[in-house]
């Protein structure tokens, strides 16, 4: 009994650590490839007269995109496992093939979306594809491999009833949701609109006027990946890591108590703690940053 719990906690910790890496890699990949909501500005910029050298591959929202790639990776790994291939090798092969599919999507996404901006004078830069594609694919591989590894641990070690491809779909979508929710504002506001005032949202009138120049020469998506990997990526990693770790932790430790109600109560307590921390963060910002305008002016 105790050995089972210790084993479960060990697997939970490993899955949480893998999830943290997955979240960080997912967000950095989506920023280098420019996917998700902030890419609306990359698409908009040439239409407003701002030609740029940012990658542009909003194939889909991050959750369905990662749902596809993780399902593909997990499904292929599952097939290799049935063929009695070593699990680690099976997971690596599954993630590799899924990454190549991501690369195909990224290439066609960039070419298609950028070509559609030809009437606004936006060129298709072949050197951008050459230099950015491999980097976005490398990050996608890390994100997919770690996610399907988590799924494998859940299925093989912890005994979750879902088959590996279904777990890939569930956690791929959850990975994309966590990564896009946490990382998008940092890439969208803080990096693309670095020329705007710090500590305030981007005025709607500034839409499309993204930063296009770096310290030397023109900015590209590798610069954006470097920037967002400092905070947006790690924060996404913490977000997804906490989700995976705490979901498993409450189940492994407390599910057997009171006929399943133990895990429910533990989850409820965790939710209340996060709500309280969230309220503290909100109050902290209001106290320390203060209002933009006096209340009476705002109501006028």
């Amino acid at each position, binding site marked *: 009994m105790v050995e089972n719990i210790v084993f479960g906690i060990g697997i939970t910790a490993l899955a949480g650590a893998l999830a943290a890496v997955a979240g960080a890699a997912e967000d950095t990949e989506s920023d280098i490839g420019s996917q*998700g*909501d*902030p890419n609306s*500005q990359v698409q908009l910029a040439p239409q407003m007269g701002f030609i740029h050298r940012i990658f542009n591959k909003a194939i889909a*929202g*991050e*959750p369905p995109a990662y749902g596809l790639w993780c399902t593909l990776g997990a499904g292929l790994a599952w097939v290799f496992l049935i063929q009695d291939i070593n699990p680690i090798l099976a997971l690596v092969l599954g993630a590799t093939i899924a990454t190549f599919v991501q690369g195909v999507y990224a290439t066609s996404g960039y070419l298609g979306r950028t070509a559609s901006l030809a009437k606004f004078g936006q060129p298709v830069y072949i050197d951008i594809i050459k230099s950015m594609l491999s980097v976005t694919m490398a990050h996608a591989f890390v994100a997919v491999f770690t996610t399907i590894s988590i799924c494998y641990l859940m299925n093989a070690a912890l005994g*979750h*009833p*879902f*088959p590996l491809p*279904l777990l890939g779909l*569930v956690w791929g*979508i*959850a990975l994309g*949701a966590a990564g896009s*929710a946490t990382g998008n*504002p*940092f*890439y*969208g*506001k*803080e990096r*693309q*609109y670095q020329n705007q*005032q710090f*500590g*305030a*949202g*981007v*005025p*709607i*009138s500034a839409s499309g006027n993204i930063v296009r120049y770096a310290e030397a020469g023109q900015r590209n998506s590798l610069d954006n990946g470097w920037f967002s990997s400092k*905070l*947006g990526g790690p*924060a*996404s990693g913490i*977000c997804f890591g906490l*989700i995976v770790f*705490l*979901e498993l932790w409450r189940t492994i430790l407390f*599910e057997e108590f009171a*006929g*399943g109600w133990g895990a*429910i109560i533990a*989850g409820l307590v*965790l*939710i209340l703690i*996060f*709500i309280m*921390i*969230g*309220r503290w*963060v*909100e109050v902290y*910002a*209001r106290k320390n*940053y203060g209002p*933009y305008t006096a209340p009476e002016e705002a*109501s006028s």
Partner: protein
Amino acid sequence: MSALGGAPAGGAAMDPISMVIGLVLAVVFIGITFVLAPLAVIPLIGIIVGGVLIGFGVHFVPVGGAPAAMGQAPGIATGVAMLAAGAGLAGLFGGAWAAEFGVVVATITGAIGGGLLMAITCLMVNVIYVFGMGIPAASGKVEKDPITGDTQAEYKSQGTEGHGLPFISFVGGVLGGLFGGGGGTLIYIELLTVYEQYLPSIFNATVEQIMPVAISLAGMFAIGMFLVNAVLAAYNITGTIEGPHDPKFKRFPRAIVASLVASALCGLVAILIVVVNLNLTI
């Protein structure tokens, strides 16, 4: 006037003829199930309730889409259906694990799983806004937060409709996750019940032997139905929503009817897959 008493945004009106047609269709789908598979009627009702919970729950989730990614609007910077799916499927994961404890415990476990994902995500969104970008949370739809009473307008930066997640949006996100996770799990559990009843006869096997197929089928259909209901609600919301205090929230009755009809049809198809096969083998 309370913040919740604001005038509803356009599109909240219910079209009576469409509603009646929808309800009649739902009754027809239930009737077909009753004729072809009487044992599956109760599970179908459960599936419909699960779908309605999902459709209703999506309206609570504060979704800011692309404007939120630029700090131009409050909410979480991703799509409605995607975020709801992420939360709901994480809940389904936990609920499926707890299926052995019965439908009530499993459904609540699923709800808590969805709520937990949303609580962590909402917290990290505000952490990024506050500590990464120096931007406080502010609503663009209400003057005061309905829960905390905090004034909002003066914390809204110039030229934006607000940013981050005010407390009411945070709580709305958690509630949305609870409804979504619970609804998705309920659909899964009900479908699993149907498949456990019918699949052994089709394959001429024991319940234990067909469980992998039953779990996979129920899981896939539950995810599919989750996406159907989440997308329907997203169409009802049209773009972004701040949470339960947003005037768009008042559109939810329309989404409930739509989810009811769609879940009845999807549930019927999911049930017919095993029932029709059974009839062919007899």
